[in-house]
């Protein structure tokens, strides 16, 4: 097990190096001289020269790459070009709000989608099943922007059930008051595609022989669905939950912007608006690392769920 984890982490390194190269290429080569970007923000030429020296853009590319690598390892990306806030501080303070939205969402979304999928697959072919599938297909086609705009207007603005936007300092207040509507919206948006997919996973299992055997032995329907079928259907589900994480992130990006939640997504959008390269660079690299770690966790979870899986 430990050997497997170590080997996987070892295998991550080339990919990570690729991400670093890609980001470096984008921002230091395609992006051109940062002095041009900065020139719009700072008018003093001495200051720009100073910054250029600080960033090392007057150095050859391999030294610049070295600087970038050092920045990643030490987590010291300097300060934001726009607000002068330390990039490491930005990362540390924006992570909490994002997680406040993402973690409950991931939890709720998985539970609700699985429960609905089991229920819908159980009554497969019925009118309920077909209606739910039609609603999912149509719901999938409406832009996430429309959901956010309409929900925010109706539930927060018109009915006043939730605050229109805002964020506090207290974790519980944030969770119950400010994240409730964003989570609800993302839940609605992400249920439709997942339900459709999970239903096919369950359907693949529901006609297997072991289900018939269990039924013949007199096992209750609830136990059949929740224990026997779910256990077998959960392998592709885990793959999908993990694969869908970046998608959740997109939704979270937008929701953070609409509801002024001071999270990673809002920071990325702000940084792109302001051409704040250090912030985007740092966020891209670290989010990519996080994605890789999550993928590793997914593989480890297979083993936990299904002992037959051999980790190689």
């Amino acid at each position, binding site marked *: 097990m430990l050997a497997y984890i170590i080997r996987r982490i070892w295998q991550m390194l080339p990919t990570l190096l690729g991400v670093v190269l890609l980001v470096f290429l984008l921002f230091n080569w395609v992006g051109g001289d940062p002095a041009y970007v900065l020139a719009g923000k700072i008018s003093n030429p001495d200051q720009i020269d100073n910054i250029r020296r600080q960033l090392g853009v007057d150095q050859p590319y391999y030294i610049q790459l070295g600087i970038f690598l050092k920045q990643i390892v030490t987590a010291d990306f300097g300060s934001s070009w726009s607000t002068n806030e330390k990039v490491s501080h930005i990362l540390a303070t924006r992570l909490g709000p994002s997680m406040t939205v993402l973690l409950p969402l991931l939890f709720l979304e998985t539970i609700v989608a699985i429960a609905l999928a089991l229920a819908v697959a159980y009554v497969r072919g019925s009118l309920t099943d077909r209606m739910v599938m039609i609603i999912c297909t149509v719901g999938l086609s409406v832009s996430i922007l*429309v959901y956010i705009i309409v929900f925010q207007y109706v539930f927060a603005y018109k009915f006043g059930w939730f605050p229109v936007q805002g964020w506090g300092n207290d974790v519980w207040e944030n969770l119950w008051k400010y994240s409730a509507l964003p989570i609800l919206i993302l839940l609605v948006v992400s249920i439709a595609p997942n339900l459709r997919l999970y239903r096919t996973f369950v359907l693949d299992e529901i006609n297997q022989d072991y289900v018939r055997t269990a039924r013949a032995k007199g096992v209750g329907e609830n136990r059949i669905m929740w224990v026997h079928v779910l256990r077998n259907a959960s392998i592709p589900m885990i793959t999908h939950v993990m694969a869908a994480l*970046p998608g959740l992130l997109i939704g979270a990006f937008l929701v953070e912007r609409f509801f002024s939640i001071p999270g990673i997504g809002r920071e990325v959008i702000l940084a792109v608006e302001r051409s704040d390269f250090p912030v985007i660079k740092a966020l*891209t690299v670290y989010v990519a690392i996080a994605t890789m770690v999550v993928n590793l966790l997914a593989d480890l979870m297979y083993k936990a769920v299904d002992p037959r899986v051999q980790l190689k």
Partner: protein
Amino acid sequence: MTDLTLSAVHAKRREIAHTVSPGLWTLAWRRLRRDRVAMVSLAIVAAFLLLMVLSALNLVAGDWAREVGINYAPPSFLEPDAAPATPGATSTPNQQSVVPEAAVPTAATPGSAFNSTVVDPIGDVLAELKGEPPAAAGAEAAAASTIVDPLADVMKEIEAARNPPPGVEGKSVDPLADVMKEIQSGKGGAPTAAVEAKRATLPFGADKWGRDVIAKTIKGSETSIFVGLAAALVATLIGTVLGALAGYYGGAVDDALNWFYNVFSSIPYLLLILAVAAVLQQKGTMTIVLILGLTGWTGAFRLIRAEYMKHKGREYVQAADAIGASNTRRMFRHIFPNVSHVVLVQMSILVVAFIKSEVILSFLGFGVPVDVVSWGSMLNEAQNELILGKWWQLAAAGGAMAVLVTAFSLFTDALRDALDPKLRGAEG
């Protein structure tokens, strides 16, 4: 080039088709024809494409930028004529939100006593301010106006008269900042159209400057659908070529390209798009096609690579090798026609995904330039309009997109089932 090879293969097939069984595409088309859902969605998609082409040729919605209606003219099915016609029957929630709107045409005329109708920007301010109070004060104001319409008109008159001064000078609070923006943007587009007689209602309403929402939606579809199609083409092309190389050659080539794939797929999609958008400073339709195409090829790569790995050992490829066909020829002349259905399905999945992405990007302001209308930029405008109770632009852009995407997804599903039932569920 791919088309050429395809048609060449078809031609060859057709020669012997008289005696032998029909080919993959004929069979698939037959299966598709029998699927009623597929045919209906195909018709809808075709209609959208037709509208898009007509709009690109300036035959339809060419004058979308003309301000044919008054500012925020409501859809005609809500208010058949000017406001006094329907004072009593305002009980549905829909119309409640529109009631303040009803006051605009009538109130604007006396308002001209102090300079409003001719100079557009201020007319804008008036409309804006009239929309604001009920929104801010909640349902009460709207309810009050439903019962006694004339009085409400007077009230609004007073409010309007009272409010403009701070609207012109102050800018500390949010709503006023909006008004300021309104004035500035109004200056840009309005003066030329001030002379024309403007209609109080339009078939599906008008936007902030009185432009027909239907024409605008059609014009917006031109951008959104074009970006979706073109970016899908670029992404599928990259994914197919790289996937073919990786799957066919295997070994070091495969390792290198797989590494490339891992790098791209380990950065969350939107983050990658935003990073590229941040770097490419100039905005434009082609830029966004490039961004989406260069970042979105990974799914196609994975599938095509698997297909090529499967096919490269087959007998017909060995036979091609035996008659001396080069690697390139084997890859694209022999194998490609046999995996082209995967490519087609993948492309059609990507079109939907890219239309959605374009809308999000343009909404955030990283997409098409400001002077180009797309569904995303329409949604962006509609976001602020909704608070004023003007929901029709949101409905038009959101609805058009939902219909197209539904039809396209259903068609893609049917296409996948018709071409290769085994592929079902392969790609979420």
